[in-house]
């Protein structure tokens, strides 16, 4: 009797889970489908739910017009800033975790820098960049992304390093290793999964950013997020381009996040949950 009931409850839960999944994935499905539709299918009343045949013309247009440069820009900017932020941030995190440098006050100050609204930060930065001539340059955008991602990297890596048993590092020091050698040969290898997971999420944050790129880029360093908004017109929107560009920007994120599933909770909860 209770076995029957538990099977029934499991079945009901499957039905609810499936319904929820369909509900949450439908907008993504819709976005992806538009990118495969012909203009007739996009602008049809009632809307076309499934395109008659999947054609890649909407993507081909982006490649022909050179709009995909925006995806490349996103990659360069997010990639470079991630590498720099990971390098600087992990060194800093090691010091915070092991030498207790600056104590809780410094750690708190660092993480609080991530909480300030970007618009308030980027406005004075913009004025500075205008003065320096750094607006719409790779260097300028990369520098800001690096600075903005540093708190996250430091915070996460501090947590991952604190999870490593300190005894290994202590015995390496006793054996005559320098602090730098301990860092490079003991702590870094031990924290490599944390390093990798943090790097991936740092990259995704920079890749998905819109507001910094909106303010600091014009034509040369336009990222894919800004490019998407360029297709919104006053009267008519370029639906095919909006969706195709969005898919190009979203698909890589889906792939890396699927690969990082195990670290996702810890990554997005700022380490509050250790997955």
């Amino acid at each position: 009797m209770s076995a029957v009931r538990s099977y029934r409850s499991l079945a009901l839960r499957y039905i609810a889970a499936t319904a929820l999944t369909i509900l949450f994935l439908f907008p993504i499905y819709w976005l992806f489908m538009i990118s495969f539709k012909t203009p007739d299918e996009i602008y049809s009343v009632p809307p076309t739910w499934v395109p008659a045949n999947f054609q890649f013309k909407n993507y081909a247009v982006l490649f022909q017009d050179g709009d995909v440069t925006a995806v490349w820009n996103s990659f360069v900017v997010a990639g470079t800033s991630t590498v720099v932020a990971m390098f600087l941030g992990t060194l800093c995190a090691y010091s915070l975790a092991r030498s207790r440098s600056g104590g809780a006050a410094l750690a708190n100050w660092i993480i609080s820098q991530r909480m300030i609204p970007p618009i308030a930060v980027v406005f004075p930065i913009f004025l500075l960049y205008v003065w320096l001539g750094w607006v719409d340059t790779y260097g300028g955008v990369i520098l800001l992304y690096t600075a903005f991602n540093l708190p996250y990297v430091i915070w996460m890596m501090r947590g991952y390093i604190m999870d490593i048993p300190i005894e290994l590092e202590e015995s390496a020091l006793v054996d005559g290793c320098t602090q730098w050698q301990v860092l490079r040969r003991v702590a870094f290898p031990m924290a490599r999964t944390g390093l990798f997971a943090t790097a991936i999420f740092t990259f995704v944050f920079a890749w998905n950013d819109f507001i910094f790129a909106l303010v600091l880029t014009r034509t040369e360093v336009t990222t894919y997020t800004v490019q998407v908004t360029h297709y919104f017109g006053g009267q008519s929107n370029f639906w095919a381009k909006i969706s195709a560009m969005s898919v190009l920007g979203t698909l890589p994120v889906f792939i890396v996040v699927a690969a990082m599933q195990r670290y996702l909770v810890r990554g997005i909860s700022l380490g509050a949950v250790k997955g």
Partner: protein
Amino acid sequence: MNAASYSKAAGPGEGFVERHFKAFTLGPAIFVLLLIGLFPLVYSLLVSFQNITMSEQNTSFSGFIHYARLFQDTRLWQAVLHTAIFTLIALPIELVLGLMMAQLFLDRMPGRQIFVALLVLPTVVSPIVAGATWSLMFDNRFGPINQIVGWFAGQPMPLLWTIKPTLVYPAILVCEVWQWTPFMFLILLAALSNVDQSQLEAAEIDGAGFWRTFFKVVLPAIWPVMAVAIFIRALDLARLFDIIWALTRGGPGTMTETISIYSYTIGFQQFETSYTAAVAFLVIVLLSVIVTIALKRVGITR
């Protein structure tokens, strides 16, 4: 590792690094952090005492005119109100929905990983893409939302979701809740999974019902993690920009303008440089205070 390998590996520059190890590890990161941690604060303060607008480039000391203007700027306080409304409506919905979803997936369920992996996808989409997606979904003629609404209404419903004053808030909130409920869900699912099973069993033996167990045992157990999730989401909502930019750009009129949208408008479209600096300074100072207090209470530092 022994002394011999140490002396072999030690390069010429290593002594310097070793002597200044702390400065070497902390210094570069802190220096770069000052670009966002100190410079905006100082420079906003400086510019806010000048008088730079589109027509004027007066860099001499202008006193507190821009700060006085803050108090008379009804549009600013409207924007603060809008931001508060979005936060106070979206956050509880995301929290409760996320909790319910987490509860659904809590017990043993083969294939759960696949569901979870699919359900979190909205959260990792760029917010601007999420906004763009929903603006296509909400299109009055070619979007599926009006079609679905029409099925229930029994007649075509050409609703102007991103234009009509009564519909813009629901439209933005739907997008916001869609994107961030999975965030709450994922974190709360992890928190619920970590609740001590023996405590739950003890409550069951004592004959406590579902709600009693939830409030007396489960909620206190998941609260530390839940507080962090609420904290992160509240601060994200305070800076709400992307999805509104994609859906309404603050319109109709200034109806959905948030603090971030308003700051962008006065700074980058009306070129009220000094006034925007005053707003930015105020926002940085106020949020720094709030964040500092909240960080202590949330106990995120461990």
